[in-house]
């Protein structure tokens, strides 16, 4: 029997009062919405005329819609570049900060700043930094004798957007990893160095295996964020008429639902995004079962 307070008499009512908002949220906000979106994806509906049964046609149309295929593959490319970038760089920063050198507090604050501030505000300044003729980044490149780059043109925009997104996410990953690193007992390292293990050996034989729970958690969070990334991409790559140089899946869902009022198409795309997340989760939890070490 699990430990817990037994509600007495009228307290049962209190218990349900406390749980009601959450139950409403589950019914309307999350689980109910998932079911509703699933149902909508089989209809054609513009919110004006009554919904029309469409069978699988919304899904079938997705595979012929070049704009959507582009958006979906952009989402995957983005995740493939972004997730390892965030995980590796924030682990790297955390390991350096965990070396017990001075100034931890200052570095932590600075690295964390982009996590606190709005993507819209910082994207505005990134837009200026990335400017082709007027931007400060190309000025730096030119002063080192390199040729200027059109950072936000279609062939480079993906990379530029990934860089800004990683810049914005390192701080949070760093905190997760620092929490994991400080939990590793110091005497493991002392014992290892007495046996003559060097820093690299200690990192790969002690730190890395013991930090796998944090790596797992951070990869999961980063991937969920990657599949839903929107703000920086919108601010850095939008063109006229709501178009974008790097359209991603969320972009496509947004435009279909709220610009074109194709609720069925947008729902089918949302379901496909949810499936992508679910497949990824499946892989991650398989990985957790086999490779993540919990003490």
């Amino acid at each position, binding site marked *: 029997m699990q430990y817990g*307070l037994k509600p007495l008499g009228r307290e049962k009512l209190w218990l349900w009062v406390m749980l009601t908002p959450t139950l409403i949220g589950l019914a309307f906000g999350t689980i109910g919405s998932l079911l509703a979106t699933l149902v909508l994806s089989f209809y054609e509906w513009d919110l004006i005329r009554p919904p029309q049964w469409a069978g699988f046609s919304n899904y079938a149309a997705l595979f012929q819609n070049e704009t959507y295929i582009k958006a979906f593959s952009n989402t995957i490319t983005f995740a493939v570049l972004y997730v390892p970038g965030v995980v590796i760089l924030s682990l790297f920063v955390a390991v350096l900060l965990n070396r017990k050198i001075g100034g931890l507090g200052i570095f932590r604050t600075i690295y964390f700043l982009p996590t606190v501030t709005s993507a819209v505000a910082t994207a505005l300044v990134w837009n200026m930094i990335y400017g082709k003729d007027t931007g400060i980044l190309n000025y730096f490149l030119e002063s080192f004798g390199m040729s200027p780059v059109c950072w936000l043109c279609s062939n480079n925009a993906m990379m530029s957007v990934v860089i800004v997104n990683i810049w914005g996410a390192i701080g949070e990953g760093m905190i997760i990893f620092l929490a994991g690193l400080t939990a590793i007992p110091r005497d493991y390292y002392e014992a290892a160095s007495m046996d003559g293990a060097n820093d690299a050996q200690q990192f790969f034989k002690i730190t890395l295996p013991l930090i796998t729970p944090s790596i797992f958690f951070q990869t999961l969070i980063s991937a969920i964020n990657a599949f839903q990334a929107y703000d920086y991409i919108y601010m850095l790559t939008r063109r006229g008429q709501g178009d974008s140089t790097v359209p991603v899946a969320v972009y496509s869902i947004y435009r279909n639902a709220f610009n074109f009022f194709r609720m069925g198409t947008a729902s089918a795309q949302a379901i496909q995004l949810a499936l992508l997340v679910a497949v990824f989760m499946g892989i991650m939890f398989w990985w957790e079962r086999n490779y993540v070490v919990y003490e």
Partner: protein
Amino acid sequence: MSSSTQKIILDILSYAILIFGAITMLFPFLWMLSVSFRIPAQQYSRSIIPDPITIQNYIDLWKNLPDHSFPYLVFNSFKISTLTAAGQLITCAMAAFAFAIVNFKGRNLLFSLLLATMMIPSQVSLIPNFIIFKYLHLIGTQWPLILPAFWGGAFGTFLLRQYFLTIPRDLVDAARIDGASLFGIFWKIYLPLSKPALAALTIFVFKDAWNDLLHPLIYLPTDMHQTTLTVGLAFFQQQLQMGGKFTVLMAGAFLSILPLLFIFFIAQKQFIEGIALSGVKR
């Protein structure tokens, strides 16, 4: 090479990398600040120290935008973020208490279900929620941004439950013997003892609401008296694309991040501990 020289070399290398990284992290903020104090003719200047330094951009922003929209944008963002934080704080704390402390049938199942919803991308609920609010005739008002905060949330509930579980059970048993009610234990023991976690959640929720772009874009009209700072800034940027005063835009960007910078500097500890807490194995 002795191990102490090796340590010194590694320390220097670590510092060099960390300082380079810190400059990269900080530079966009410094640049934003620098541009915001320049005269418009020098908006593309390559010097980080503005010459001359002017505060005219801030005055223009506050007083001279069409319809005096900037103060409205700030007010709307404050209002929506504060109400959102209040809603999440109340509903998540109640649910977290029930899940952490009270023994009831179906507790584990319900909690697992709630946790599982963290994996559902929020885009999935976007469309049904839009339709519900449309039938309630609330599109174009701020309600669709505020009301959902009052139906709980997986992240907040999980975070507070983690913290509640660290509070010693003896306190509950002792209070029970003294005849305290369920709600009394929640109100008089758990809430006062959980201030750090409650502060962390407040900051997270306020921050997310303040920085949100997608939902205000969907629900609010493009009326600069009704919408939020993020949408307002995005809209100003679009208007400036053809050439205009980016100095004023940077002043707006800087003012929009100022409240969060302020909160972050006074509550940094809660913020960072909150994130670390959310990463703890359950």
